[in-house]
């Protein structure tokens, strides 16, 4: 089919879009949805070269159909450079090259392949391909391009997964629902970084009012990115086209689309807790799960016999060991604001006189006990206070901004602060809880409105029991900085040496405890049980080592402004024409209907269990009978090895996507990868890179030229008459412009990471440290709003942060490194299954003048001076390192002369700019 005809077809399809709309019965016959069966490996006709690798049989059969034959095998230098960049993203060292050239064993090449696949560098190289597919970056993007400090563990997860050759089905399942399907493996939770890898609209999802349409729209769009990422990456389906209407070309209905929205309706992008130690991980996840059940008022838990026993135990313990408080006898008590504090008979201090806006009370007392474990602050009513207090504000309220305890030991020069923890109070004003008096933030405070006119109390535990040397003074500091006279009217302090927990019970629970068990309603039993369980969970969590965080899909995370976990999954409606103002029926979770071998709607026992939704999708994706998944991945891998896929649209197997150049090979590979290789990437790489097809030379084979001549095609004449004319290979198109038939290997430009890492390796500067937080290769300054100012020109190229492989660079979504960008490194705002491979002026300028190249050229020169003695030897060594070949006599003379006149570093810079360096044959 000619290109023009295809364009015309495209236009016709667009025009007749409405009538073409999703007739599932006919569309389901499209190649991508057909069940997978392995076609027979073609038997080659007599005379064809014998092949042992089935890949070669399929390729050779197709070439023969077109009267073509394959190119000869590339020479060993070319082959080693090609396979090294391909598998590990680095050039071979001269030593590796020498070893390969002198290896006379029949399996010398296979041994090289095994060495490369076993290298830790392999994981780094292939993880980066996956980061492109996932549009991974370490900032939010959009207008508030905030840094995600905890995104990098997902990158390390990818590197480890490739290195360890994780079977593909497991790899997919972990990234969609690892937390649910592999709860005992902490790394399976880190894998959820995949779903969160893309951009996030902070201003719309965190800052603006929650009741705006913009917020609602943003939620749908956020899930749209999640499901698009999952379905394009794993199933090569452009499901996102069905947001506003049924897909115009593929059998994807709007219902399918919103069913996928529902799969992700319970997750947000946030910092998710995990533990490197699997035992701790499981323990913490169980506790967090229980905490969620409590929060959701799960009566089967709260009213279970086991919980009832726990409540009874707790009540018995509590009754048997009431906390014994000893009131402190204040010796000095000062109001900074000038109020009068008067000691009362009960040990309390009554404020009177001046009522400042803000105040701080400093109260000193000897300890009545030799050891203290907790403090109680009572705030008491008094007839002299407005509304009987306990505060001095007109309404009787107060705000305690911060509470501190200090110990002044005899002979000490200053008081030392004693850390406090686990604050509790009998009553918390809404949004003014007791924790706010201990959060180190003087703008937040504890209050008791509307429960004025009665006594209240707060209890603080000491982080560690404090044993006091005789004569030590306790100093209590009560900061009350809210303003408008929100001051405590009558405080009283007490201490205890009882061990924690010392928590004071909220009044409404104390009232329940006071009732005989038989008279408690279910509501009351549940309330009390929730409190007992929460306290038990809190203590258990506090006893665990501190957790790690990964930026990932999450349903249980610390709220951040108005970004809060959804609890149960949010409701998803089908939106008419995709408009938020036109919600139609509620849609339940499911997936594509066009894979007829598998049910498209999920039968889930508990619709509130969001994890079950993702687990169902993960299982659907990895089912043996899902032809999309297995075709998708082998095509994606093929793309990276050969320059483009057997289907040239790795993310779109629909009717508007590419057509397979070798449909039988695609299916054979999919079945082989699934069944024979058991999803092993390394096995798959080995199959492809050891094929004769992969090992061909990149020059155009004679058969292409002669066949073109035979067919009277114009390009070949040009090639033959003037081989140096800059005629495009595109002039061969009448035959095979894209080299889709693979009559030779394609010559490709190195990608941004390969250029970057090769420059470092050749300069002798590459630091091979693996993993950890990303290297920030820029100067970072605060911006006017959220997005910082980032200046790549101010980065010190020679510093340690500039020496690791580029997979460890910090990836700023809206402020990418211009050097890498010039080499087509994607910024993470779009899914990038296939990079552009452009040649631009900006690229030339970057390689010529950028400080990274200039400085490393100097390091390269210094290395040459260390490693070779004569100017000629240095030139030879330079060619060996940069190009993997010997310099010709003429080149030695020319470059040595150039170095003599203009400096060796200048020669090195030139080599980094040479086509021979930047391209792989």
């Amino acid at each position, binding site marked *: 089919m000619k*290109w023009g005809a*295809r364009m015309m077809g495209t*236009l016709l399809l*667009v025009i007749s879009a409405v009538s073409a709309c999703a007739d599932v019965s006919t569309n389901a016959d499209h190649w991508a949805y057909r069940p997978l069966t392995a076609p027979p490996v073609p038997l080659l006709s007599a005379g064809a070269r014998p092949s042992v690798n089935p890949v070669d049989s399929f390729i050779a059969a197709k070439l023969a159909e077109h009267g073509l034959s394959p190119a000869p095998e590339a020479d060993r230098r070319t082959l080693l450079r090609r396979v090294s960049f391909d598998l590990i993203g680095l050039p071979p060292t001269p030593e590796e090259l020498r070893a390969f050239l002198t290896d006379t064993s029949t399996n010398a090449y296979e041994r090289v392949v095994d060495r490369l696949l076993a290298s830790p560098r392999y994981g780094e190289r292939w993880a980066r391909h996956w980061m492109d597919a996932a549009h991974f970056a370490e900032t939010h993007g*959009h*207008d508030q391009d905030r840094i995600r400090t905890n995104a990098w563990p997902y990158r390390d997860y990818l590197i480890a997964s490739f290195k360890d050759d994780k079977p593909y089905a497991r790899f997919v399942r972990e990234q969609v629902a690892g937390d649910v399907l592999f709860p005992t493996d902490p790394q399976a939770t880190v894998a959820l970084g995949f779903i969160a890898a893309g*951009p996030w*609209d902070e201003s719309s999802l965190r800052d603006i009012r929650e009741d*705006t349409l*913009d917020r609602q729209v943003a939620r749908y*769009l956020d899930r749209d990115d999640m499901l698009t990422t999952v379905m394009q990456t794993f199933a090569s389906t452009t499901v996102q*086209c069905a947001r506003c209407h049924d897909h115009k070309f593929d059998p994807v209905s709007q219902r399918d689309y919103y069913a996928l929205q529902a799969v992700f309706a319970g997750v947000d992008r946030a910092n998710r807790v995990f533990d490197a130690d699997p035992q701790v991980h499981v323990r913490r996840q169980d506790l967090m799960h229980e905490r969620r059940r409590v929060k959701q008022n799960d009566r089967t838990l709260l009213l279970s016999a086991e919980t009832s026993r726990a409540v009874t135990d707790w009540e018995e313990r509590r009754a048997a060991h009431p906390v014994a408080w000893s009131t402190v006898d204040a010796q000095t008590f000062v109001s900074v604001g000038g109020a009068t504090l008067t000691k009362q008979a009960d040990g309390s201090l009554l404020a009177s006189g001046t009522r400042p806006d803000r105040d701080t009370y400093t109260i000193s007392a000897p300890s009545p006990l030799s050891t203290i474990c907790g403090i109680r602050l009572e705030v008491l009513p008094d007839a002299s206070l407005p509304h009987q207090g306990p505060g001095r504000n007109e309404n009787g309220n107060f705000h305690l901004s911060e509470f501190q305890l200090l110990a002044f030991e005899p002979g000490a020069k200053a008081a030392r602060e004693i850390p406090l923890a686990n604050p509790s109070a009998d009553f918390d004003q809404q949004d003014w809880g007791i924790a706010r008096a201990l959060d180190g933030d003087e703008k937040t405070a504890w209050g008791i409105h509307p429960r004025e006119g009665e006594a209240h109390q707060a209890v603080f535990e000491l982080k560690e029991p404090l044993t006091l040397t005789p004569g030590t003074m306790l100093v209590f500091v009560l900061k009350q900085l809210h303003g408008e006279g929100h001051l405590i009217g009558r405080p009283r302090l007490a201490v205890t040496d009882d061990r924690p927990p010392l928590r004071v019970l909220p009044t409404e629970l104390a009232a329940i405890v006071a009732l005989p068990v038989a008279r408690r309603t279910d509501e009351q039993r549940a309330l009390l049980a929730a409190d007992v369980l929460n306290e038990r969970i809190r203590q258990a969590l506090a006893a665990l080592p501190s957790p790690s965080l990964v930026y990932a899909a999450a349903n249980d995370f610390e709220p951040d402004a108005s970004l809060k976990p959804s609890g149960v999954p949010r409701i998803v409606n089908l939106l008419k024409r995709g408009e938020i103002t036109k919600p139609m029926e509620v849609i339940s979770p499911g997936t594509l209907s066009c894979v007829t071998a598998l049910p498209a709607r999920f039968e889930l026992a508990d619709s509130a269990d969001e994890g079950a939704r993702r687990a169902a999708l993960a299982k659907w994706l990895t089912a043996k009978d899902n032809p999309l998944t297995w075709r998708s991945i082998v095509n994606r891998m093929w793309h990276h090895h050969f320059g483009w896929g057997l289907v040239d*649209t790795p993310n*779109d197997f629909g009717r*508007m996507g590419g*057509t397979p*150049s070798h449909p039988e090979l695609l299916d054979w590979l999919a079945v082989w990868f699934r069944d024979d290789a058991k999803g092993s990437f390394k096995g798959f790489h080995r199959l492809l890179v050891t094929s004769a097809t992969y090992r061909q030379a*990149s020059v155009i084979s004679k058969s292409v030229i002669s066949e073109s001549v035979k067919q009277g095609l114009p390009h070949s004449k040009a*090639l033959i008459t003037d*081989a*140096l*004319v*800059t*005629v*495009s*290979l*595109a002039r061969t*198109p009448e035959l095979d*412009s*894209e080299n*889709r038939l693979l009559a030779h290997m394609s010559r490709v*430009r190195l990608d941004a990471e390969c250029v970057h890492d090769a420059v470092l390796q050749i300069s002798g500067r590459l630091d091979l440290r693996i993993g950890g937080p990303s290297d920030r290769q820029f100067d970072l300054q605060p911006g*006017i*709003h959220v*997005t910082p100012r980032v200046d790549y020109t101010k980065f010190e190229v020679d510093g340690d942060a500039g020496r690791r492989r580029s997979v460890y660079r910090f990836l700023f979504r*809206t402020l990418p490194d*211009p*050097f890498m*960008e010039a080499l087509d490194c994607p*910024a993470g705002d*779009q899914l990038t299954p296939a990079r*552009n*491979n*452009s*040649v*631009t*002026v*900006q*690229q*030339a300028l*970057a390689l*010529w003048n950028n400080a990274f190249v200039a400085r490393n050229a100097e390091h390269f020169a210094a290395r040459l001076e260390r490693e070779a003695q004569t100017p000629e030897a240095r030139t030879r060594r330079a060619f060996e390192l940069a190009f993997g070949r010997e310099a010709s006599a003429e080149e030695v003379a020319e470059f040595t002369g150039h170095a003599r006149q*203009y*400096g060796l570093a*200048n020669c090195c810079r030139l080599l980094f*700019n*040479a*086509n*021979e360096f930047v*391209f792989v044959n």
Partner: protein
Amino acid sequence: MNSLNRRDFLFRSACGFGGVALGWLCKEEARAAALASPYAPKPAMFPARAKRVIHICALGGVSHVDTFDYKPELERRHGQDSGRKFDTFFSQPGRLLKSPFAFRQYGASGRWVSDLLPHLAGCVDDLTFIHSMHSKSSNHTPATFLMNSGFTFNGFPSAGAWVSYGLGSENQNLPAYVVLPDPRQLPAGGSINWTNGFLPAVHQGVAFRSGERDPIPDLATPSDISPARREASVRLLEKLNAADAATHPGDSALAARIRAYELAAQMQLRVPELVELSRETAATKSAYGLDHPNAATAGFARNCLLARRLSERGVRFVQIFNGGQFGSPRINWDGHEDIVENHRKQALTMDQPVAALLRDLKQRGLLDETVVLWTTEFGRTPITQGIDGKGRDHHQHGFTIWAAGAGLKPGLAFGATDEIGYDAVENPVEFYDVHATLLRLLGVEHTKLVFRHNGVDRRLTDVHGEVIQGILA
């Protein structure tokens, strides 16, 4: 052969020198063009009315009711409840606020302009106003992305990149798409605003760093490399590359890369000459306001003058930003707190330079072949932000933009908002329509300028867009 898909073979084989998705472009022409230069001019579909674009982006949300959209009814109902529901962005809705600026009619066309913009008021007979704009978002950055790329998300190619991709450039020694950010700061999202998105990288907007002799990163040869050394290196590199190319006859990527180095060398010469303003007359510089005591005005004036010089040299798309990042202190038109204080300050930076640019283009005969497009991402509410507030909040339902130059009806007021400036009620226009019209003026049918990405035929106008016939001459 039938199974092969060569829809965009050229894009690949010529390494991103686009043109292939232009349905009307003959293959041979495209090939020739790709080999000549990445910015090689490409033929238009229709006779083009305009050759070039200068796009002025006033960021932050310029209040239509305080600049070009005169509303006497607001004066009558000043201080009253609007009677309308406002989905305000940050605040509680306040009451109707008459414009604190005095409006008058100007020119033969009698267009209304407030006293905020006295210089532009003198140009109204050359301007074509669209008073009935509507945006999909009232949030700055999504709305700005929509204005520039047709999508509220980041990462889609901006209009300038599409035009570069579709039409190339008349000048092969300069980029086809040049961006002149506000001298105070880059807009929110930085270079994403002029991204090539999924289009070949060569079509990305090249942002000139304000006021520097080397406005393009990595343009200058490092200072420790002498001209002789540089020259010798270039020659040696050419030789090395030629030898390499000989081993791969016919590989266009190798040739293109050699060409890119030649272009880079040209750019190294041409750009410093371009930004060197010493040969402009004192009268010209003063007319633009390069000598203005306000630094922001003088810097913006310099960009306007640079825009003329770029257009003069055939650069296809020049984009000038008036306004930087959002947030405080305000360096854009985002007048939440006090519309008088904010808009006076911003108008001072923009009014004189833009008016001077229009006059200068006209006087040199360039306005006949250039479209000057002035846009803002949305307007501002006819009510105050909060009761008794002095500012106005974001408003997406009706606002004003204008264009001037080739192919347009001058002095026209197209479309209208209702009596208080709330809704676009007459001939509502979306940015898709503006983009479709802009492409039409350049001789391109917007539905046919496509690029296939991740299985979708992408367009500047997404699946929307109608050419605004009513403003075309």
